[in-house]
């Protein structure tokens, strides 16, 4: 019924998009989870005799400037980037949901103070804020996660607050209050379940965003230590060779960043269409 108002052609394209996205995301997860334990190769193995080789059967993605296999480096890099993306995305969503829901549920002064804080933080470019945070720590995965998470809960908090505010004035909340529900019960049983689909969507969209931020920080040399493979570090170290006309050390890490990002966004889009109430408004009976 959700698909009732779409033409068959649009329905097919949508289905293809969802299947392709899910396939890519699945492949990416399999690769980063299975390749490192199964393939007993050292991604750090330096082979100076084979540096900057273009793609070949032996090295499908070629080698970097110290002869490391780029395919392997990319998989490891994606692993780190994805870890940062997922953990930071989830943390940001949890913080944002909690702050937004509490601000809206309490209202009054709490709401005003919290939302002004959110506005203030939002007015600072968040990459700048992120750089400020990582700069306080020694480079590593932890600080990058903290930096990305602490700069990305703001939009989620806004979305959740708006959603809760619109729900709070609904008669069904009145009915719960009149039925004796405590403040906590109203939030936990009636308000949060209603905003979870939105918050979940925000979380999925946050993962690729956080991956890009990790890459950006690493690219600027502020993220992960350079020996650790991450997509940002790979692109950063490949910069020099690009000027020499060696395209593969930049292209493949770049694709590893872009393709999973688009696939995740595709899945999130399908999810958004599912939770969109207008699509669910079945018959006019």
């Amino acid at each position, binding site marked *: 019924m959700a698909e*009732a108002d779409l033409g068959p052609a649009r329905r097919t394209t949508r289905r293809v998009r969802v299947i392709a996205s899910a396939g890519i995301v699945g492949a990416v997860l399999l690769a980063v989870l299975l390749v490192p334990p199964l393939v007993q190769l050292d991604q750090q193995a330096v082979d100076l005799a084979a540096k900057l080789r273009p793609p070949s059967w032996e090295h499908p993605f070629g080698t970097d400037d110290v002869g490391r296999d780029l395919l392997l480096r990319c998989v490891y890099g994606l692993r780190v980037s994805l870890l940062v993306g997922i953990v930071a995305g989830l943390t940001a969503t949890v913080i944002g949901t909690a702050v937004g829901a509490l601000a809206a549920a309490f209202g009054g002064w709490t709401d005003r103070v919290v939302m002004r804080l959110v506005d203030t933080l939002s007015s600072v470019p968040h990459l700048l804020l992120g750089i400020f945070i990582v700069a306080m720590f020694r480079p590593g995965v932890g600080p990058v996660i903290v930096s990305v998470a602490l700069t990305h809960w703001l939009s989620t908090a806004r979305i959740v607050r708006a959603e809760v505010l619109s729900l709070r004035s609904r008669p069904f909340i009145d009915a719960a209050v009149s039925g004796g529900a405590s403040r906590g019960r109203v939030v936990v049983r009636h308000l949060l379940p209603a905003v979870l689909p939105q918050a979940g969507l925000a979380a999925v969209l946050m993962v690729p965003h956080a991956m890009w931020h990790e890459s950006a920080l690493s690219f600027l040399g502020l993220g992960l230590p350079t020996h650790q493979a991450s997509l940002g570090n790979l692109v950063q170290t490949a910069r020099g060779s690009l000027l020499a006309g060696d395209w593969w050390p930049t292209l493949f890490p770049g694709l590893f960043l872009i393709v999973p990002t688009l696939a995740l966004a595709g899945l999130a889009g399908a999810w958004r269409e599912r939770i969109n109430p207008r699509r669910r408004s079945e018959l006019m*009976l």
Partner: protein
Amino acid sequence: MSTAPGPKAPMSPASDSDTKPPEGSGPGPKPPVLSVRGLSVRFRMRGGRHIAAVSDAHFDLAAGECLALVGESGCGKSVLASALLGLLPGNARTSGSALLGDGTELLTADERTLARTVRGRRIGLVPQSPAAHLTPVRTVRAQLEETLRELTGTRGSAVRPAAERAAARASFPAGHLDRYPHELSGGLAQRAATALALIGDAPLLLADEPTTGLDRDLVERTVDELRRHTDGDRALLLITHDLAAAERIADRVAVMYAGRIVELADAERFFGQPGPRHPYAHGLLDALPERAFVPIPGMPPELGALPEGCAFAARCGRADDRCAVLPPFDGRLACHHEVRADGEEPVRA
């Protein structure tokens, strides 16, 4: 009470009534504005289920006539309206026919024809919630002018006075033309929507629950205005669950139950003496607070799981074995047990 069926009650399929002339005020010399024959709408649901939202509807609507289609919410009356406008969702299948006076077949017309020549031009829709029907970010004047340009081809300096005339026709005060929909009261929003519906000079006005949630005074004013526009050439199909509104303006009443029209009668006869013939219609009137205020027991059946025979039998005090067979609609009634007041002639021709 007699339980005998009318002598003419046919035991043949309902399609027999295809050739019957419409009851009541009659079509006169002109063809009916709308002629619906055997209209059915089925929704295909997940898991191969089907919902019979409208089954085998027959009625004619003559020029100058107001037909009220009444029934509980969920009986299929809004689906019928959407079918006439070609606004059903993709999983709906229609059968039968719905002919406009000029011969346009509404059920098979493609979207292009419906959009360019039917909606607004041959069927004017008065919506259920006018406030939601009007574009919130544009003034009433802007919307009237746009519709005028679109439907009548009025251009240039002629548009402004034409918009004012269109507003005046629906008694919309000229002083409020530059307001936005949210600045209008419910009654004025309703008039603005009516003015829009009238611009195309469509011969058929279709009002889908135009009075839901309105105050009694406003209900009366709204339906009176709709009636006023149902003059010589124009017909009004009023779809409503508000029996008082129907009583006020309708010439004829069609009662819908579980997707079927179960009774079609002159309004005067239906609301006055001798009253409705179908036990369901009888129950509906008895439920009014100005009458007995007694509900019909039970609830209507699901349109996805209709019984074999009469859909009302489970709630009907007169039901017996005969009700296991679906009573055919003979042009005025679909029931094995006609409700008849004493002294009434058994059957009208």
